[in-house]
């Protein structure tokens, strides 16, 4: 028994040590500390990295421009990161740690709706404003959260435009949209299922018939079962979404099995680099996206989307996907709002964020009462001749949609 007392004492000592070591030094003077738990490992790590790069570039450029002026004093931005490993339980713990141990002033969103959902109750409880650019699930904005703001469009909007294009093109061909059949194969997670709900709602509005509605499992590596159903039921459009993996598998297997659908609509095409990976096989795919570097917005720090893309590419050596752009915009919102609030007080900054009405390279930002950005619209690409052509909205369109896609033997 003496042994156990000793070991217990040792255990207590270890805990105490951990406590001492675990608390990182609080923020130095003249810096504004932002905290973020992002997915550096695990299933969301591609987009987690995009998010982190986006945040870092924003902080760097804003600091180079003199930082954020609060009451005549210039503050530098600093970001503290943790790795949530793409798991929500971890995310919630880490954000609590950012707030109570690292004493961050404000919180930047994680990557993804599931992680954001896990974190919001905590930021709400502590009254810490969180601006996020990667949690698009509509469910986030129906709970009456006061400290949550999102720069992006909610995820149900990702593929709605594809449904309208389908209806319009069918009408042009003289077909009644009610006669159209659609197939849905969308991953079984928060974000993707919200994409699915958007598609279903709009399809219902047009009276289209949903003939396949599969939920792809998280450890999916083969879509044969779903695609065989597509072959049998011959829908007019196939909607696939499941982060990068969904886009890659969708293009690869649809092409390999020569499954013909007049319209194939996806998400995450650019971050999955489908044109680089699959060349011609990626042609005619429609892709929903939050942002495109060819748009003509203007920005106080970055100039415009093209310049942002160039700077991003020069810094991180890849084209910025929208996940990075929306993250950068998130930091811009904070910089803008803190300066307007003239204070680091969380409640004041929260009110300043709510009153945001700014133009960024990512698009206009203005929040509604629930905290989502209502000023910006989504972009719909179509891959034509291995390039992304913007086909909707009309204002930014650089080409016309091709529908129906040619049969495989005519490509």
């Amino acid at each position, binding site marked *: 028994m003496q042994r156990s007392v000793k070991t217990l004492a040792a255990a207590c000592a270890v805990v105490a040590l951990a406590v001492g070591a675990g608390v990182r030094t609080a923020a130095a003077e003249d810096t504004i500390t932002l905290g973020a738990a992002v997915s550096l490992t695990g299933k969301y790590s591609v987009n987690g990295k995009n998010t982190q790069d986006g945040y870092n570039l924003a902080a760097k450029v804003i600091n180079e421009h003199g930082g954020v002026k609060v009451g005549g004093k210039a503050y530098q931005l600093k970001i503290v990161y943790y790795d949530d490993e793409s798991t929500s339980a971890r995310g919630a713990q880490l954000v609590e740690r950012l707030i109570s141990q690292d004493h961050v002033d404000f919180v930047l969103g994680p990557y993804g709706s599931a992680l954001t959902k896990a974190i919001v109750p905590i930021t709400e409880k502590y009254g810490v404003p969180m601006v996020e650019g990667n949690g698009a699930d509509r469910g986030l904005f129906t709970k009456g959260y006061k400290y949550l703001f999102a720069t992006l469009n909610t995820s149900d909007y990702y593929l709605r435009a594809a449904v309208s294009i389908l209806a319009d093109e069918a009408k042009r061909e003289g077909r009644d949209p009610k006669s159209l059949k659609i197939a849905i194969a969308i991953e079984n997670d928060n974000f993707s299922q919200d994409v699915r709900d958007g598609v279903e709602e709009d399809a219902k509005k047009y009276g289209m018939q949903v003939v396949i509605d599969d939920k792809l499992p998280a450890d999916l590596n*083969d879509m044969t079962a779903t695609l*065989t159903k597509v072959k049998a039921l011959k829908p007019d459009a196939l909607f696939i979404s499941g982060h990068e993996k969904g886009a890659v598998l969708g293009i690869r297997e649809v092409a390999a099995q020569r499954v013909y659908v007049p319209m194939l609509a996806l998400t995450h095409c650019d971050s999955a680099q489908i044109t680089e990976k699959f060349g011609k096989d990626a042609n005619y795919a429609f892709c929903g996206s939050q942002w495109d570097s060819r748009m003509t917005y203007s920005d106080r720090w970055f100039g415009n989307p093209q310049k942002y893309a160039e700077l991003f590419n020069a810094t991180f050596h890849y084209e910025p996907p929208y996940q990075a752009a929306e993250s950068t915009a998130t930091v811009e919102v904070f910089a803008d709002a803190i300066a307007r609030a003239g204070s680091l007080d969380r409640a004041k900054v929260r009110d300043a964020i709510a009153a945001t009405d700014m133009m960024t390279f990512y698009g206009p930002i203005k929040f509604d009462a629930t905290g989502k950005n209502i000023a910006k619209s989504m972009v719909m690409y179509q891959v034509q001749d291995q390039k992304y052509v913007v086909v909707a909205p009309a204002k930014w369109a650089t080409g016309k949609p091709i529908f129906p896609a040619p049969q495989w033997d005519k490509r």
Partner: protein
Amino acid sequence: MSNLTVLADAPVLLVQLVVSGILVGAIFALVAYGMALVWGVMNIINIAQGEFVMLGGYVVFFLDRAGIAPVFGIPVAALVLYVVGVALYHTVIRRIVGRDMFTSILATFGISILLQQLANQLFSADIRTVRSGLPSLFFADGMITIPEVNLVGFAAAVVVGALLVAFLRTTRMGQAIRATAQNARAARVLGIDTDRVYATTFAINCAICGAAGGLVAMTWFIQPYLGLTYTLRSFMIVIVAGLGNLSGVIVAGAGLGVVEDLAGFVLGSEYQTAFVFMLLVVILVGRNLWLARERRSLR
């Protein structure tokens, strides 16, 4: 059950599901060979099996990017993984041979999460693919499609299986491996260097996984966290087929592929994995009942 009506209306789809299930299952079978070998000879369950597949995929991917076609990339991947296997054997695995199997499960689990994050840090988590450039074959008016790359995978599984059998039957090393599997102590007494036998066995397993990884990159995609899928599936195959039964492994692999496809089609993809593992539990429980009956009848 509208999915069943679809199947009844177009029975040709059943052929498609079965054929692609068999071809896909062959790649799982390849990974399962290695697992059965290590399990049978060394009494080790290797949880890091899927991570070796992942590493093999990356080797083929990077070679492909450097302009070396997968045809040459896959043998190189096997070779690289062979070396990795030897290195791992001498650092970790040799210390757990002969200990209880539970130790090996935990130790290889440690190796597996280590390799996952290492790959994440070194190669990034981007989803990678290798283009095979192979076309697809069509039958029955395009209702049945077989990508040739799947045929290549199947052929590779059969060839590797045959080579393995030939190796175990005919070479000195192969005989030594079989002798060690039967009775390691007796083998040692008879002058067999069991340490070398174990090292070779483990390295061969790694090489097989490496080759399978190349096929995976050509057929689907690779990323640092794909390992578990392959580890669990090969587990299942080995349990169903039993140890030391290579042709059984192929059959079980193909069977697993078919069951997965059919379950995904009929129940919907969301229940595909659940169904497969439910089957695993049922098989284990059933196998146990069957064994118990055997025991009773022997009495």
